[in-house]
């Protein structure tokens, strides 16, 4: 069945359709952007109508939401959480800080470009992005999944050495468990 190209295509379509409409998000809410998550999920903006749902543990989650700046200290945690997630997994960089450091661009203890350390699929810019923007970001991610372009997890696996090198540059005391997937 898996050798058959036609049926593979159909499987892919179903697969991507299911993935697209069921996004379990794990919000890494240490940055100030976390305050925008509750309005996004609750009555006013109701992200659940897109099939977006909060999840409590990385094992069940599909989307890792990095809400705002990342201190070097917490980068380690984020990487661990990301590696605990199961494929396929997506990362959404949330707010200007994840794109270029934002207002913390010259801070000694935050990272500037998230994409160097984790493969970001969608950036949502703004400081802070409003819930509409967040939902727009999710819709963008859904589009990418539909087209099969949201393959950050694959890129991470392929370029693991590069990512690890970048991460180790920032994290001085490296006590991480080995990568597992």
């Amino acid at each position, binding site marked *: 069945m898996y050798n058959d190209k036609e049926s593979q295509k159909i499987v892919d379509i179903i697969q991507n359709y299911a993935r697209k409409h069921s996004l379990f998000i794990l919000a890494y809410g240490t940055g100030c952007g976390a305050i925008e998550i509750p309005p996004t999920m609750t009555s006013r903006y109701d992200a659940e109508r897109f099939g977006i749902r909060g999840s409590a543990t990385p094992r069940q989650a599909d989307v890792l939401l990095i809400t705002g700046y990342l201190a070097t200290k917490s980068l380690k*945690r984020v990487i661990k959480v990301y590696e605990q997630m199961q494929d396929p997994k997506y990362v959404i960089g949330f707010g200007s800080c994840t794109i270029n450091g934002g207002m913390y661009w010259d801070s000694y203890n935050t990272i500037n470009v998230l994409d160097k350390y984790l493969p970001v699929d969608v950036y949502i810019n703004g400081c802070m992005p409003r819930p509409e923007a967040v939902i727009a970001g999710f819709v963008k991610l859904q589009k990418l999944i539909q087209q099969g372009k949201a393959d950050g997890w694959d890129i991470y696996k392929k370029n693991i050495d590069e990512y690890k090198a970048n991460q180790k540059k920032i994290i001085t005391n490296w006590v991480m468990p080995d990568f597992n997937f």
Partner: protein
Amino acid sequence: MNSLVLLILIIAGGALLSYFGHKINKILGNITVFAVALIIPIYWFTQVDFTETVSFTVSGFHMELGYNMYGRLFSMIVMILSPLALIYAIGYMKDQKKLATFYFSFLFSILGMTGILMSRDFVSLFIFWEIMTWSSYLLVIFLGKDVQKTGIKYMVFSAIGAYAMLMAIVIIYKNTGSMMLSDYFGSFAGFTLQTKLLTGILLLLGFAVKSAVMPFHVWAPGAYSNTPMAYTSVFSGALSKMGIYGLGFVVVNLFAQANLEIVGYVLAWLGAITAVLATFSAVFQHDAKKLLAYSSIAQLGYIVTGIGIGTELSIMAGLYLAVLHAAFKGVLFMVVGAVERQAGTTDMNVVSGLVRKMPFTFFTALIAIIALAGIPPLGGFVGKWMLYESLINNGNFLMVIMIFLSSTAAFLYCFKFLFGLFLGQQELEFDHVKEASPIMIIPMLLLSVFLLVTGAYPGIVFKYIAEGMTNLGFHNVNWQMSVLTNAWGDSVNVQHVYLSVVVVFVAFLIFITWRGYKHATKISTKDISSSGEMIKPEDNMTYAMDFYKPFERVLSPILKYKINKYYEDFGKGLEALFDFMRRIYTGNGQTYAVYVIVFLAILLIFSKSIFGY
């Protein structure tokens, strides 16, 4: 030569041989024990003729040995469980000293049990009963832990039981002029109500102590948990069943025949109360041995309830549970022994995550726990089902609720047992633990297989139970290989249950294992979702302390005012009593002489009013 005499000689000879074997050399001793453990059951199953009898007369007392079908049922428990425990003991006791005494007492307690089950008269019954009690007492104090408390408790309660029995025997002899059990049964209907109750209840007292029914269970937790585990599996599995054996024929053959079902009913209530209280106590134990000890008391409570109700189905349930209890409690005590030996402790607050180190032990424990919890499709369910149905058919609705409360709460300690020892975090301090030696694993596996098979074919046990129940006055007991039926005609086909569970399980096993299992990495228990916290290998993440705190809070009103206070007062009262009794023994010969004289004087003065002559 008579096969029964030979059986007793074989066991006694085995005891002596293993004693001397171990005196000479450990290896020789172990080989002897192994050989004895094989010979006894093989001889029993192939050579013993159950129709034979032996009778002899000692100083005027006619004594007779011979099996009946009811005794044979219990003998099967002894003959299957004890040899397995003996073989297990070879591995378990490897590093212990005083092995000669251990095996000697072990085999002598087997001898005692075998003798009890074929005694047809009260004298031999009493003699064998005492052999069993004393040899088990030697094993209770064998490790020298807590001798003051548990050993003396066990001894005192056993003595109370034994003397109650002795008193009953004397009164019976006075009334019937014969020591034969059959004469007693035959003439029971002719006794006055007073004599009926007196003899019967004294006998019941003797048996109830061994089967740890509510007011007399105090010795059990300590004795079960302080004995070497190899023997505890027999202690809890087979030896306590001797009490059940006695209760069975007293309640059913005597009281039920004489329209005194009320005694059985009271006993059933005691059993139900025992089950509930012991279960609650078991839930809050943090030592696996203590947990199992309380659980044994609770399980014996079910059995006593079944026997006490006295209908066909309930007795069948009681006896079936007795057989099953021997199997699963045998396994569980062996499991605890293995854990104790390999990991050094059985404290569930400390030890955890052994499943990765001791998979076979875990597997047997899992099977035994499922059977204990009475969950289909394993054998334990069958007994529970019959017990409930018999209670419901009788309309004892309150007792059903109590038993159900007890067995639902039993899930709590069942899970805690598995979780505390085997599941949970794998800690560094137990990294060195290895799987137990095969000689310990094999007996456990064999018993587990029995538990698995009885799930689908409980009939293999029913066959012997039905035969045994002919001696309790139930002829033509209705049983089928794998269909259970109650008095209202509702039935459960356990084979269908098994089939359904296995088919679905295998189907989904293939589904979930196919494509993916081999790609999955097995990871350590430190790699859990911890909200980003970095857990180092040496961090202790075990959650076991106060595991059932919410349940404790729920029960706190009861626990505070009832159980604890009751137990403490009871204990204090007993201690005060013992303290007083100790003072009687002054060590002065003249005081003892005075006691004797006073006792004789009392006898002379009151003999008329007590004994009537």
